[in-house]
């Protein structure tokens, strides 16, 4: 693939207002991408601060710093912020920045909607965070807001919680529509489906998952709202409803949601590993098929979150088999990455280090996922710290590590400067060590029988929890190095070339660094 870039002479025609108006009114995919990424970073630190509160309380047995009710608010809002405020907007930011540049499009297909889908997000989270200051505090029923804890037995912040989730959902749906329309309509001539970079493919599939399941989430929060305030009984047995119905609807959204947070990560790693191995991605076509099968299977496994709710044996068996099956396409992906490295000529810059850590640690999260799929064993793991360890391995060392890798990988393209490699390596090694101190011992704590979402615990768990908390504080502190790298890189540094990385291939590496405000106003020629 190669392209002829013809828009150098247009660079001085940028027509962007200056100051705050540039950011408020912008319809430029690069500006909007930057805003999404900065927003996600801020949310990552706010959600992280809540995790620090949780770990401080769990440092020692007994209640030290917060009340149980506030502890529950912290676990709930930490989850909501990290899922909807940090990971998802970060991926949308990357999509905004990179998809048009990867497929040779001048911008996203629906630029005004793009502006709107970003600018409603800060309000959604403002509402959610403000609810913490209400009398009785914010939502405290877990990010999964199981009824009837979130209906009959919740505080009045529930209304704000529902409203805020609605706004987040609208934002995600608009973002997803934009990605789909862009990829379908704005590919440069010659950019056929099977030539698209995997990041574009995985995001396309993610976008379809989003428009299919976000309305389900909107539906279920609305049912919570009407059950609580308008006298309906969807989830109340006394009125003919069923509390387990809530969990079916929630997880029908929730399980695809898990893949929404990991498929773009697969795309990122599939971009980074070939670049630094200087070798084409192994099994491109099978990667596309594996991603699609994971997306399809994600609609058939939701009840594996609910094995203890009491379902017929036949149901439990169906969901167990389908869940085990997901290991196959996921395995294919990991095998492909390893085969890509095999007999390459690797170098180990920071993006590659995070991508390698992703492959190993995400796979560990995958293994514990496979263990959780075994229904009889799941009865012992369910709702313990083993599950907490599992989903933090796939979400922190999985999704978050991939986002960090992506940031290092494309920073030179965004800013025109190389980041500080030494500081980046410090960030990597500090994060790698602390994140494993934080989450690996959680497997043992869970197997030994510590339930999740408890503010206080039996004495046998004390030593491990103290160690985990120290890991948590260190991981939190390590992310300050990341901010230092970002600030330093935005301000200046060694000038980056257009290709940036020796082994990098693709349209985004054929425009200058930093990428001009408008790229591909005339479509590139793709060989």
């Amino acid at each position, binding site marked *: 693939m190669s392209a002829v870039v013809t828009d150098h002479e247009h660079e001085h025609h940028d027509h962007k207002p200056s100051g705050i108006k540039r950011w408020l009114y912008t319809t430029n995919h690069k500006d909007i991408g930057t805003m999404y990424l900065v927003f996600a970073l801020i949310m990552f630190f706010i959600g992280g601060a809540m995790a620090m509160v949780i770990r401080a309380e769990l440092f020692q047995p007994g209640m030290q710093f917060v009340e149980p009710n506030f502890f529950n608010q912290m676990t709930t809002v930490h989850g909501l912020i990290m899922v909807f405020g940090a990971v998802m907007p970060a991926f949308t930011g990357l999509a905004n920045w990179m998809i048009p540049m990867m497929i040779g499009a001048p911008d996203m297909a629906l630029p005004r909607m793009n502006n709107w889908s970003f600018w409603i997000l800060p309000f959604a989270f403002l509402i959610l965070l403000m609810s913490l200051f209400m009398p009785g505090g914010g939502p405290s*029923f877990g990010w999964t807001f199981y009824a009837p804890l979130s209906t009959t037995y919740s505080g009045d912040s529930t209304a704000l919680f529902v409203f805020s989730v609605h706004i987040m959902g609208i934002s995600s749906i608009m973002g997803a529509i934009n990605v789909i329309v862009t990829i379908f309509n704005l590919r440069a001539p010659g950019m056929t489906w099977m030539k698209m970079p995997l990041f574009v493919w995985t995001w396309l599939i993610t976008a379809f998952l989003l428009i299919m399941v976000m309305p389900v989430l909107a539906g279920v929060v609305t049912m919570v709202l009407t059950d609580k305030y308008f006298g309906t009984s969807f989830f*109340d047995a006394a009125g003919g409803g069923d509390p387990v119905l809530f969990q079916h609807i929630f997880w029908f959204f929730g399980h695809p949601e898990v893949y929404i947070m990991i498929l773009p990560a697969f795309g990122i790693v599939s971009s980074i590993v070939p670049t630094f191995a200087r070798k084409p*991605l*192994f099994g491109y076509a099978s990667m596309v098929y594996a991603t699609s099968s994971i997306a399809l299977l994600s609609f058939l496994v939701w009840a594996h979150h609910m094995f203890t709710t009491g379902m017929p044996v036949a149901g439990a068996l169906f969901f167990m088999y389908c869940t085990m099956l997901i290991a*196959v396409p996921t395995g294919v992906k990991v095998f492909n990455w390893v085969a890509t*490295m095999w007999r390459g000529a690797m170098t180990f810059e920071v993006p590659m280090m995070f991508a390698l850590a992703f492959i*190993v640690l995400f796979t560990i999260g995958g293994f514990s996922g496979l263990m959780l799929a075994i229904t009889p064993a799941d009865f012992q793991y369910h709702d313990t710290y083993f599950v907490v360890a599992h989903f933090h391995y796939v979400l922190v060392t999985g999704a978050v590590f991939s986002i960090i890798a992506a940031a290092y990988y494309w920073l030179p393209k965004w800013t025109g400067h190389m980041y500080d490699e030494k500081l980046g390596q410090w960030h990597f090694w500090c994060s790698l060590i602390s994140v494993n101190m934080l989450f690996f011992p959680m497997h043992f704590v869970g197997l030994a029988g510590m339930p999740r979402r408890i503010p206080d615990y039996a004495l*046998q768990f004390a030593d491990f929890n103290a160690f985990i908390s120290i890991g948590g504080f260190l991981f939190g502190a390590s992310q300050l190095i990341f901010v230092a790298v970002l600030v330093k890189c935005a301000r200046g540094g060694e000038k980056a070339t257009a290709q940036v990385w020796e082994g990098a291939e693709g349209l985004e590496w054929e425009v200058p660094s930093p990428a001009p405000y408008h790229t591909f106003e005339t479509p590139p020629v793709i060989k």
Partner: protein
Amino acid sequence: MTKTRSLRWSLPTLLLAATVDATDMPLNMTRGVTEISQQVYDLHMTIFWICCAIGAVVFGIMFWSIVRHRKARGVQPAQFHESTKVEILWTAIPVLILILMAIPATKTLIAMEDTTEADVTVLVTGSQWKWHYKYLENDVEFYSLLATPKEQITNRFAKGENYLLEVDRPLVIPTGKKVRFLMTSDDVIHSWWVPAFAVKKDANPGFINEAWTRVDEPGIYRGQCAELCGKDHGFMPIVVIAKSPADYEQWVNGEAERIAKAKAEEQELLAMNMSMEELMSVGARTYTAYCAACHQPSGEGLPGIFPALKGSAMALNDMPGHINIVLNGKAGTSMQAYARQLSLKEIAAVITYERNAWGNNTGELVQAADVHAVMQGKGE
């Protein structure tokens, strides 16, 4: 001043906690004490070793590649990027492994779900934040509450060996018999979990779930609620004592007798009047055990979630309304019905306490007969 005092409190308690913490934590899932829990442990270990083996191969190849195929060693990158043969192989092999794994898992699951032919049936009801056990074959039922004193939780006293895993009245089951549990809930979803039995089942309000166990070893087994159920989710443990069938028979008959006796006493009580002093002392005890979790020891509640009793219109002026809400709860809120949970004497005492503590100085006494009257629909 208060600040320095709390600091002085916390330092020695922290040190003390550190010495108690020496309790060893097992690093793996328990084998448990039942045939099923042993099977579950075996499944867990099988899938664990399978994961280790796959991990060793995949990570082994990856690290070998990282060491050997680095640019620094001057290697030239190969350009291959597909191989149908290899790709079919690494799709087919995992499928085979999974099928082999699914067979024993299916067998165990079917055995776990077979609740037929039980010898003893216990109805387990969760509520915020305690368990209630009812033996369906005997006239025995009781609540089981956390027995760890509040002072241990707030670090004012040293923590005991079974901190947060001890209850006032444990569930007792016979050894060698198939015990069936029927799970339900009075309010939100709870989950009844005893790791040693490999039993974890959600207690859903309005529905009944089933589980079973057969314990061969007499002993004390501890567990916890495993589904987030509100503020004190972390404080509703489960303790089960498995006794030989003879000891169990003796215990269950003793319990039936005790409950029958308490009921008879209740009747006698209707004709008696208790003094303010007695009512206040029984009331304070009951309040701490049943009411303080929500309405707080200070009676001030938690604004926005749990209403204050201190200075509340109901506690100052509306005695029948007060008795009624304690007896029957308030639909659509966390306020439970205590008619079944507490004796008439305790209800009378706790209402008296709430009407006279924290400056609610109404001076009014509530007697068991008053409570009984409201219960019979003959309120004042």
